[in-house]
């Protein structure tokens, strides 16, 4: 009864808003701290002042009491990378939550329908060709990875399509098989072009090293549009959790919903992978963790997952670039090292409860 009375529905909305605002603020704080972290000693306060100064319409008479080089480091080097980390983390986590809901499979992650294998193959070919062409500041590798990822998702979807329907199990199996095939091709390329081996392997581990505003600009539209579409379909995702037949009986156009959500999820995952390589675990673990906290309702699960994924990857990338400074670790190593034990802890705790 209580949840049907107006008071408690408002209570739920208030709780949701509070959760999102808190996490949004936390993300901003984490990003500011990350911008102040690194070999050059820049104070967080100065970073904040620099940012406020740049806001449109703000003309502070304040003195700039930091060297000009600090401003360059923050705006040209750290900030784009931090923003990209937040976008990639949020995008991967949200795509993972979407796939897990849509495929009703807890093992689903953004890579499950072949996105990672396709991107790897694209990237590997890009590395080997030593592509000279670049587009709006993006390397051949980035562009090839994006193309490879999308093409693979498209092929897998069409393989799984039987008479206008895409059975979930067929889609999963087709994804696994195509991934295996493409991975074999990547391995073959790595063996036969061994001078490129190191670069390909490094790309596949996932890293945000050396990424700049061009990558932010290039991936933002896909992540933003994909994210918005998924949010708009949150109610359908909830109903799809009850099974496809029930969803149809409740008026949902199931096949259309699948196409829309798979396209949106694949765009997000492809955009994320092409600028960052294959960062594992974010898209698998963050949605599960958040689901334990918010419950299965996608209207709150999806935005919360995006924020938590963003925070997680900003922190992980900051660790990746500072822990062995001046050397860098691929951030994929950090996400798995930190994410897996935490997830196992949650899993055990959850099992203990039931």
């Amino acid at each position: 009864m209580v949840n049907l009375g107006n008071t408690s529905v408002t209570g739920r909305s208030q709780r949701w808003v509070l959760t999102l605002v808190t996490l949004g603020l936390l993300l901003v704080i984490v990003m500011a701290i990350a911008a102040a972290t690194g070999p050059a000693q820049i104070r967080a306060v100065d970073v904040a002042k620099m940012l406020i100064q740049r806001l449109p319409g703000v003309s502070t008479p304040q003195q700039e009491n930091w060297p000009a080089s600090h401003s360059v480091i923050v705006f040209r080097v750290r900030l784009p990378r931090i923003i990209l980390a937040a976008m990639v983390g949020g995008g991967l986590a949200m795509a993972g939550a979407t796939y897990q809901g849509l495929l009703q499979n807890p093992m689903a992650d953004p890579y499950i329908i072949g996105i990672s294998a396709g991107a790897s193959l694209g990237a590997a070919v890009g590395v080997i060709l030593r592509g000279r062409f670049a587009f709006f500041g993006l390397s051949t590798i980035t562009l090839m990875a994006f193309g490879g990822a999308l093409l693979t998702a498209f092929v897998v979807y069409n393989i799984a399509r039987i008479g206008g329907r895409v059975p979930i199990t067929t889609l999963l199996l087709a994804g696994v098989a195509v991934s295996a095939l493409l991975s074999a091709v990547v391995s073959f390329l790595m063996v036969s072009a061994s001078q490129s081996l190191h670069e390909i392997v490094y790309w596949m581990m996932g890293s945000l090293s050396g990424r700049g505003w061009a990558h932010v600009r290039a991936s933002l539209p896909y992540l933003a549009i994909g994210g918005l579409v998924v949010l708009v379909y949150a109610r359908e995702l909830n109903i799809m959790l009850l099974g496809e037949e029930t969803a149809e009986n409740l008026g949902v156009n199931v096949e259309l919903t699948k196409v829309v959500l798979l396209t949106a999820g694949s765009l997000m995952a492809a955009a994320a992978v092409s600028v960052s390589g294959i960062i594992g675990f974010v898209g698998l673990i963050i949605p599960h963790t958040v689901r334990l906290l918010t419950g299965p309702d996608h209207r709150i699960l999806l935005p919360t997952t995006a924020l938590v994924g963003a925070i997680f990857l900003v922190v992980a990338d900051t660790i990746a670039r500072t822990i062995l400074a001046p050397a860098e670790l691929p951030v994929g190593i950090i996400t798995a090292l930190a994410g897996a034990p935490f997830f196992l802890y949650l899993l055990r705790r959850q099992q203990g409860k039931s």
Partner: protein
Amino acid sequence: MTNSLVVQNLSFAYGEWPVIKNVNLSVKGGEILGIIGPNGSGKSTLLKLISRVLVPDQGRVFINGEDVSLWSRRRLARTLAVVPQDNQIQFDFTAGEIVDMGRSPYLGRFQAMSSRDRQAVKVAMRATGTTTLAERSVMELSGGERQRVIIARALAQEPQVLLLDEPTASLDINHEVEIFQLLRHLTARRQLVTIAVLHDLNLAAEYCDNLLLLSAGAVTAWGTVEEVLTSSNISSVYGLDVAIYENRVTGRPHVQPLPRN
């Protein structure tokens, strides 16, 4: 206007394999039709054809005189609700949230539930005695409670037609009786067209007004319980000798399978 559902010459095949052959039936509001027949006779398929989860190869389904193949999925969902056979819900929704989903065919994409929607949910939960379960997780409910929640979700759709596929298949006898009494009451009160696929012939005899006996996808008998449940009908379709006698307590026919000699 009284509600009605009419099925005309419905046929369906999985590939080359005919599953439903030229089925005709009609049900009036306030009436429960039981669909009976052996495993594989096409009972569930017939239900899926009526709810348009499957699209028939031939034939039509009319609700209140209108051909439903011309309707949108959402319009159909505002008129016809289904209680499926397997209602295991693996996700931690509350019962209230599940019933809320019954309102989704009434909601536009960016529309929140109105007080009218909340009222429909409230009425559905009251009618099924699930009001006190609203805050509980569906994963913690007993089989009987969960089934009542699913029926509440169907009622929240405010349907004129209610389809049920073995609604009490996995329930204890006390819950079975409870669910069927609820269905009788709701069908009469709201003048619903209720169609239930049933496995248990005696359950069908107790609670249905009319029966449709399917055999290999075709109608063998259709009529009142007494007309359909004859020993010759049952023995020819099930390949089994039965004795049929009147249940002295309820006055309904009772089917007693006889051992083979």
